[in-house]
């Protein structure tokens, strides 16, 4: 069963705008992570947020986690053309289960 579901599936914005992507999941988690994938490349870890955290920042990235709604959001501020990529959320359960990835959001940042 698929744990994470990103929303929207695709997002197109202008350079300088903010981009927000959402992830919903179904069962209790230990942590939730966001990864970026540039075209034709492997995934790159961006940020991890644990179930007892509500918000984390890393540079232009801001991640929030609402465990009551089983959802997370990734905000990229002041987007750049280089942010064009697919973004995936991945969840890990409380009992050492493996990671489960969502289908991803394709972000296009237009110059």
């Amino acid at each position, binding site marked *: 069963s698929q744990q*994470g579901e990103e929303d929207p599936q695709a997002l197109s914005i202008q350079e300088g705008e903010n981009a927000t992507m959402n992830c919903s999941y179904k069962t209790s988690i230990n942590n939730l992570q966001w990864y970026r994938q540039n075209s034709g490349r492997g995934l790159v*870890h961006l940020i*991890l947020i644990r179930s007892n955290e509500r918000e984390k920042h890393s540079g232009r990235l801001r991640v929030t986690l609402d465990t009551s709604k089983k959802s997370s959001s990734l905000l990229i501020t002041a987007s750049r053309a280089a942010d064009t990529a697919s973004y995936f959320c991945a969840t890990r359960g409380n009992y050492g289960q493996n*990671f*489960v990835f969502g289908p991803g959001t394709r972000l296009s940042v237009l110059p």
Partner: protein
Amino acid sequence: DAGITQSPRHKVTETGTPVTLRCHQTENHRYMYWYRQDPGHGLRLIHYSYGVKDTDKGEVSDGYSVSRSKTEDFLLTLESATSSQTSVYFCAIRLSGGRETQYFGPGTRLLVL
């Protein structure tokens, strides 16, 4: 990139032939994973390993087998390739010591005709 390489990077094969993909890491990480990536599905776990000769099945393991005879190598074998196994295959490692981050290899594009 945690020193992860995958080989081959591209392969075209015919239905019914065996195929082996190799994942190699240089930093002696304990946990290794094989995923496949298909449009609309994100990454799905095929098999994983938590040490030499210690492997287990993931979500989509049917038609695949793995072996890990050395810490640095994790092999994925398609015993008899089918067109449904056309995909991009990613290997990943996870750091030990309670760390949760996964590091991914560059991927192998497999086309089964």
